[in-house]
């Protein structure tokens, strides 16, 4: 296969960029890392489009780049401008960065192992990118569980969504364009809504722990009469 080396190189690059995203602590740092990951994803999309010779995939690549590498990072930077340091930066995550890193490595191995069980035929694209996309999904979930700061759950969500995009692309080589546009619109609206929420969290809650704690109102305690 002519493209084999290129595909393996690209999937490796994507995994490395994901790991970089996992180990970042500061909000601004991971936004930068997310931008790099999306650029790698765009290159992969273009290559898949070139191999399968499908113009719809080029459109998807353009949308991915403009939406996830340009609009979403800017939006997130803008809404978090006025939010205090504690809300943005991970000082005491549930899982330490070291644990996250080891966990991610295990998940990558697991996803390569589990995708071997599916018969894919001799489809080069699916064989090289399906395991990567599954590991992106799993790493995204791990990051969401591991982060304590509510805001940073978005990091996990964005990794997960990139994984989802790659999964759909590698398995189906471009589902029809109307569905992809629908998915993109959903993602965009989701990010906009979550940034409104972040904005509100920023000025409604005094303390970061308020967001995570379950509420125990005095209202429900029984009065003695």
């Amino acid at each position, binding site marked *: 296969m002519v493209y084999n080396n290129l595909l393996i190189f690209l999937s490796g690059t994507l995994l490395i960029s994901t790991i970089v995203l996992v180990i970042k602590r500061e909000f601004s740092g991971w936004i930068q890392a997310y931008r790099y990951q999306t650029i790698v994803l765009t290159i992969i999309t273009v290559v898949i489009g070139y191999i399968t010779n*499908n113009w719809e995939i080029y459109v998807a690549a353009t949308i991915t780049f403009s939406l996830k590498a340009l609009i979403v990072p800017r939006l997130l930077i803008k809404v978090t401008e006025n939010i205090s340091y504690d809300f943005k930066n991970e000082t005491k995550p549930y899982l330490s960065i070291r644990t996250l890193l080891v966990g991610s490595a295990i998940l990558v191995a697991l996803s390569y192992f589990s995708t071997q*069980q*599916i*018969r894919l*035929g*001799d*489809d080069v694209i*699916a064989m090289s990118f399906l395991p990567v996309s599954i590991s992106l*999904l799993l790493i995204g*979930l791990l990051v*969401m569980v591991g982060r304590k700061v*509510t805001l940073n*759950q978005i990091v996990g*969500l964005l990794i*997960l*969504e990139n994984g*989802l995009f790659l*999964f*759909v692309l590698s*398995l*189906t*080589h*471009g*589902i*029809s364009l*109307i*569905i992809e546009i*629908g*998915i993109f*619109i*959903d993602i965009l*609206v*989701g990010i906009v*809504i*979550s940034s*409104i*929420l972040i904005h*509100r*969290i920023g000025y*409604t*809650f005094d303390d970061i722990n*308020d*967001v995570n704690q379950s*509420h125990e*109102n005095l*209202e*429900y305690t*029984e*009065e003695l*009469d």
Partner: protein
Amino acid sequence: MVNSLIKILPESSVIMCIVLTPLLGCCLVTLLQKKRLLEIISVVSSTFILFLTFILFLYVVEFKKITLFNEFFYIDSLSMIVLLLISFVSFVSSIYSINYMGKQFEDGIVDDRHLVRYYQGFNIFIFTMLLVPTINNTGLMWVAVEATTLISVLLIMIYVKEDAIRSAWKYLIIATVGLSFALIGTVFFYYANISDQMEPAQSVEDKINWTSMLENSRAFDPIIVKIAFIFIIIGYGTKAGIAPMHTWLPDAHSESPTPISAMLSGVLLNCALYGILRFYLISSGSIGAEFSDNLLIIFGLMSVGIASFSILFQKDMKRMLAYSSVEHIGIVTLAFGFGGLIGIYGAILHMINHALVKPLMFFASGKISQKYETKAMIKIRGIVTNMPITGIVFLIGGLAIVGLPPFNIFLSKFMILYSGFSSDNILASMVLIILLAIVFIGFIRNLIMMSFGKPKTPIKNGELGILSVVAMVMLVAFVVILGIYIPEPLDILINDAANIFKQV
């Protein structure tokens, strides 16, 4: 009669009007920002949708299935049931909204801007829900379900309170992650459809359609189908509130404005369940019903179990109702797992019954919490003496929801248990009976305590508004009628829907 009606109103225009009316309503709401006009527009548009859905209902009973635009819209008996529920519940909710949001407006909890946003969201929410059962394309169906999540998050965020923000965030994150799994499942099914054993994968537009998948389901790779169905049940199950993925549900349902709680609980859960059922049909067609049946039984039983103990120890009225939704969705899931003609009939009837009773309960509880200015059940006493009509309606709803005989849920629960015992699922059915008894104890205790007795602080007697009473009485009428008599067209529709399950 139907044949002459279809000449005056062709099915294509009926479907297009149903789908486009809420969009038009949203545009009008945005343009005319007067409080009175907003209310009138919403009621008129939902009445119009209800009227057209009723006509479509007659067509579907007559012709079994209706397709439009080269099967882009595909409506059979199963989707018709969900459509009927959506249009009816949104109709009563729009009437109730006038009263409820009007009261919130008078109390100064919401202002003009919030009200406009509420009615815009209300119309778009109806639009996205209407798309779910009508679209044949499973990918676009996923997009529509995801859109319902986003728009309902916006509706929960109407109140700028800490609790509302917290639950909106939780709902957004959990439902989005869950639905990602549903997309993975959908893509796996699509992959199974496009990958023939010999040829390499080729993308074909129509192959993502549900009808095409069902047609080719026998040739699917069994391993992929199994993986895909697990992803689907986790994914759409998150949205349907099946335990253990239900954790967002009590928060979201208790924090949203009451008319929205009623719609979330009454129909949105059914929309998500509809997604599971569509793929259940494909997977049963491919690998036989046993695998998917077992999964549905396990998840259903787990939902009923978790919900029953949560109801027993609940202190908040709306949270109790939310957990009761988890319980009922669990029962429906379980019933589809039991299978058999009576089981499926009972499950579909239960979907309808739950969609009638739960809005009734939410409406009543909304009025009660506005009157007593609290949601804590410990502080609410003597509803029947303070607000006679609401109190009696609340009592009827409560008795119906635990499944007492003269009301509708008794009938469907009886059918479900009957099919459970007659289909070799003795253990599951026995556990279900025990759990239902626990729910009964928890629910009835709170219901009796709230309905009777003397209020701790003296409260002025009297109802709050005539329109809310109108909405509730309409629902009560259906609850009582469906308990003793199922109208013939509805009976035919449910039978047709049950036959869809029998064919595969």
